[in-house]
């Protein structure tokens, strides 16, 4: 036996949960460190956007936004998002239904491919579009002979955006639907519901909040995508310039108020996305997949 005598006097008076929690000083240090990190990296940059946007007052801000080029970039961004979000939402639902409800050969490969756009640089995504549809691309010359322009035109922007926003909805729905299981749906079928009816009255209501969150993320990325779109758009001002590209153009013109005014709209979109996400998580903890990575 190895003997260990009890100390004569306690080393320190025990506080509540002393042994199972960090010393208060360490705890305060860690919290302070985390707050500092997040302030330096997140809060200050975010605050800058709005402060710079109003650097010349509300009038300057409104003036910057009423610029014709800016207006046209806002319109283009809305058009692109309006096309891309529904397409990728439909895909996401179809993919999630196949992956979360069936066991089939090659499923894990399918999931890997769905995630692929996350691990490919947006610039490379844009490059792929150029290689396919560019003037010396695989299909570009062919399409050009029919008068269809893709690169340096809106279709290219849409394709590049579709590529980078491809996984968002599916990524959100797959874990959620796997977690919920198919008992509800099977019950609906035994009660005589048709496939579509089951889908509309059972599946969709069960996943609606997760779906909403996925759509929001998809939309935020579709409106905010920069790298992929920069490569394919040709940055024709007032023509193929989306809001993030307009931010870059104004910034390079040293028009800080203009750049940050447009940026502030995009930042506002990000904030709304985060607020809705936080609200959904707080309100429907169980209805959003627990483990998530965007």
């Amino acid at each position, binding site marked *: *036996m*190895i*003997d*260990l005598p*009890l*100390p004569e*006097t*306690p*080393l*320190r*008076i*025990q*506080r*509540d*949960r*002393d*042994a*199972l929690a960090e010393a208060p000083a360490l705890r305060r240090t860690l919290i302070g460190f985390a707050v500092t990190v997040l302030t330096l990296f997140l809060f200050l940059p975010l605050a800058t956007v709005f402060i710079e946007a109003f650097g010349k007052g509300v009038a300057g801000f409104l003036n910057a936004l009423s610029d014709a080029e800016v207006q046209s970039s806002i319109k283009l961004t809305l058009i692109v998002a309006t096309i891309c979000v529904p397409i990728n939402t439909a895909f996401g639902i179809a993919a999630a239904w196949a992956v979360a409800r069936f066991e089939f050969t090659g499923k894990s490969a399918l999931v890997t491919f769905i995630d692929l756009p996350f691990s490919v640089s947006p610039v490379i995504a844009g490059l792929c579009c150029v290689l396919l549809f560019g003037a010396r691309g695989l299909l570009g010359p062919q399409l050009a002979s029919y008068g269809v322009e893709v690169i340096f035109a809106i279709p290219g922007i849409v394709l590049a955006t579709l590529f980078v926003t491809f996984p968002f909805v599916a990524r959100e729905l797959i874990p959620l639907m796997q977690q919920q299981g198919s008992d509800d749906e099977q019950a609906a079928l035994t009660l005589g519901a048709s496939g579509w009816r089951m889908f509309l009255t059972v599946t969709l209501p069960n996943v609606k909040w997760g779906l909403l969150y996925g759509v929001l993320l998809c939309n935020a990325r579709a409106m905010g995508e920069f790298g992929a779109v920069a490569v394919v758009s040709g940055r024709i001002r007032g023509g193929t310039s989306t809001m993030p590209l307009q931010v870059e153009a104004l910034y390079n013109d040293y028009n800080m108020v203009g750049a940050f005014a447009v940026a502030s709209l995009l930042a506002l979109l990000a904030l709304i996305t985060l607020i809705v996400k936080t609200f959904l998580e707080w309100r429907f903890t169980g209805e959003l997949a627990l483990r998530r990575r965007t």
Partner: protein
Amino acid sequence: MDITIRRLQKTFGASPALHGVDLDIRSGELIGLLGPSGSGKTTLLRAIAGLERPSAGQIFFGGQNASMFSVQERRVGFVFQNYALFRHMNVAENISYGMRVRPRATRPSPQQIKQRVGELLDLVQLTGLEVRFPGQLSGGQRQRVALARALAVDPRVLLLDEPFGALDARVRKDLRVWLRDLHKRTGHTTIFVTHDQDEALEMSDRVAILNRGALEQIGAPDEIYNAPATPFIFQFIGDANRVPLNIANGQARLGAAKLGRVSIGLEGAAELFFRPEDAVIDEAAGLLSGEITALRRQGAKRRADVRLDQTGAMIEVDLPYGAIVYPSQRVGLRLERMGLFANGRRVSFLDEAHRVA
């Protein structure tokens, strides 16, 4: 190491988990803490370990006030219900952990540690499994690793929280006998928590019964079974019939039947408890009678449901082997042992002839 607990209280927020528990545990004793869920038994165990800080009261290890010492300094061996093994450490690393984390001055040498791990593995019959990881062991094996890990610090008291709770029935029975045997060999003062009365009665030197944060009775298993101190224990341990009755003018009455004399001053409603095996069908009995309403087999026993003529209460009666009875038969009843409780406290009969015949 004997352990003394004095007026121990623990409050979580507004709800009291323990109120005023006094308990004396003798060195080398194997004590079972038994109670329904929410009775405070795990809180008491965790307070002894130092994992919960009592709101009031003291715990003494030997003569020393343990409340002053942090959990690290108490040197208790705690086996958690889910074992809480470190899953990234192998069996040997798990068992030696408590020795390896000691301050350099008191840390055994690597050879001593290795030897001690070997001894402990031998003790818990897991020799050869040193390099397995917890994920590669069965439930029973994990339980024994957790026990060896707790024993490695040469604990002054061994604390087990529902030690067999997560195991299936067969393994559980084997481990009971084995743990009882291990206790005999190592002689550690041991306290284990259980909600299973069979487990507590079979294994413990003494059983302490907790209910709603208070200690209701402590005693040897036979004492607990034969002389329950409270109505709660009468019903919690074994089977019991509960029949309401009346006390008037110092006389306990079941309907019209006079049961016996009790002290003057106890007036009003009371309860009579007796076990099904203590009620005997006896045609010669004159005081209590009833009608058999149903017959049932429960494992080794045959049981009759009887409606008492005196109050209309339904009771259960064990039948001797080969007894010939039938439903709607009228029978006389004799009670071999019983407990009378007024205001939740046991009341004794004044006349010696309290055996009801």
